[in-house]
């Protein structure tokens, strides 16, 4: 049905590498944000500068970004494997 694409064959290694790069850049970005939030926590602790506010926001931001990483991985691997 779809002549240009052969569903049974795996795509070229280049495509796979780019997909991995895409995934890792997203994971890197999201974990970067998590690390950044962590650093702000550390700074506010160190400078005694409303640590409580930072904790409160980190409590929301960190799970959200972790979840995003999770969802992205879930979609990525789920679809990649689901095609078999």
């Amino acid at each position, binding site marked *: *049905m779809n002549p240009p694409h052969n569903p049974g064959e795996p795509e070229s290694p280049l495509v796979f590498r780019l997909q991995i790069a895409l995934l890792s850049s997203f994971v890197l970005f999201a974990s970067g944000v998590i690390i950044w939030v962590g650093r*702000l926590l550390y700074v506010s602790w160190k400078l005694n500068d409303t640590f409580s*506010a930072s904790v409160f*926001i980190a409590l929301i931001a960190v799970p*959200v970004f972790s979840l995003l990483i999770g969802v992205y991985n879930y979609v990525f691997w789920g679809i990649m494997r*689901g095609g078999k």
Partner: protein
Amino acid sequence: MTEIQKNEHDAVLIRSIFQTPSWYWPAVAVLGSLVVLGFGAYLFQFFLGLGETGLNQPVTWGFYITNFVFFIGISHAGTLISAILRLSQTEWRRPITRIAEVITVAVLGIGGMNILLDLGRPDRMLNMIYYGRYQSPLLWDMTSITTYLTASSVYLFIPMIPDIAILRDLCPPGPRKVFYQVLALGWQGTPRQEKVLNRATAIMAIMVIPIAVSVHTVVAFVFSMTLQPMWHSSIFGPYFVAGALFSGVAMLLIVMAILRKVFHLEDYLQPIHFNYLGLLLLVFTLFWTYFTFAEYLTAFYGNEPDEMRVFWAKWDGPWAWGFWGMVICNFFIPVIILSINRFRTITGTVIASSTILIGMWLERFIIVVPTLANPRQHRLPTGSYWPTWVEFSLMTGSFALFALFYLVFSRFFPLVSIHEVREGREHSDDIALERIHRYRIGNGYIKE
């Protein structure tokens, strides 16, 4: 030869991707030059200082912050509306969701950019990362907008995977095919893939709603966390969210109308969509009016001198044009058009949406500037503000950038979700029937 070509309707959705419409490049040229003009104005401002704008003491914020709030508000059209419609399994959402989500992604970036335009030292942007502190509402903004942008992008991307796969299959070999191959993630439409996709979409839809609400709430907090008159108000968070939805739906309607014309999507975006969204807009109009009334009545009744100076400045002072313009554009015109069935046509909703966009922009302006112009320190002369060509150019550039983003997007991806539309065409009868049966009185009917 493919499924697409068999179906003439869906072919229109990808025509613009493989064939360049005749107006395309001229449009890109016009928009591009507006963006370049804006960039030039920015360079001018960057090297000579913010003094090249109309900003001053005490009106330290003007067009840029207004645009920031305005664009962030527009962004609610997309992901939030789409998520709500998806979760509520509204059938007519199918051709609309992607259009809405693209608005969000485009406009969030532009909104964030407007904050950068406003910075005195944009070269020190990284200080927000090195020395950021969470006591500042600006950091809340930064975190929440980043989250929203990330989530919206993911939320735009995930449902688009099947469409990308279609494009991948259609695309002749070449770099563009590789591009689609990478993004399609090997989608073949297996039931397992469908399941993953649906589950992820559902999770994202749920997640994105509180994030979107938080975004505009914290944008409002930038103002309401200060002690300034007419800013320091607990209503500001929800007020901004209501306003955001309001202006967002209006923007969505306008974008829909334009795309409908330009990309010949008449079959997908039908008067009924405009009618339904028009009704939604009417609800938001009333919501917004209610919030505005509550906000201003509280200030007026309390009669606190500092607040009243701002209040009167808006009511019949130097900013009355903005205030009354806002009331007319946001309330009188939309209510007249949208509440009369005969007027709730495509043209009617577009007119109403246009005035709402103007009105909501004025609302943001009228929140930002009069308070700054009438600070508590009333012994000093009241401030005044009139933007210079720099701000006008950058504002035009911002809007042009938004349109340009849309044009570029339309070259790579279908603006209406083929997958969802097709799914709707094939299954919506069953889905709808099943849903109706599920809650119809006397549920035994179907089992019978």
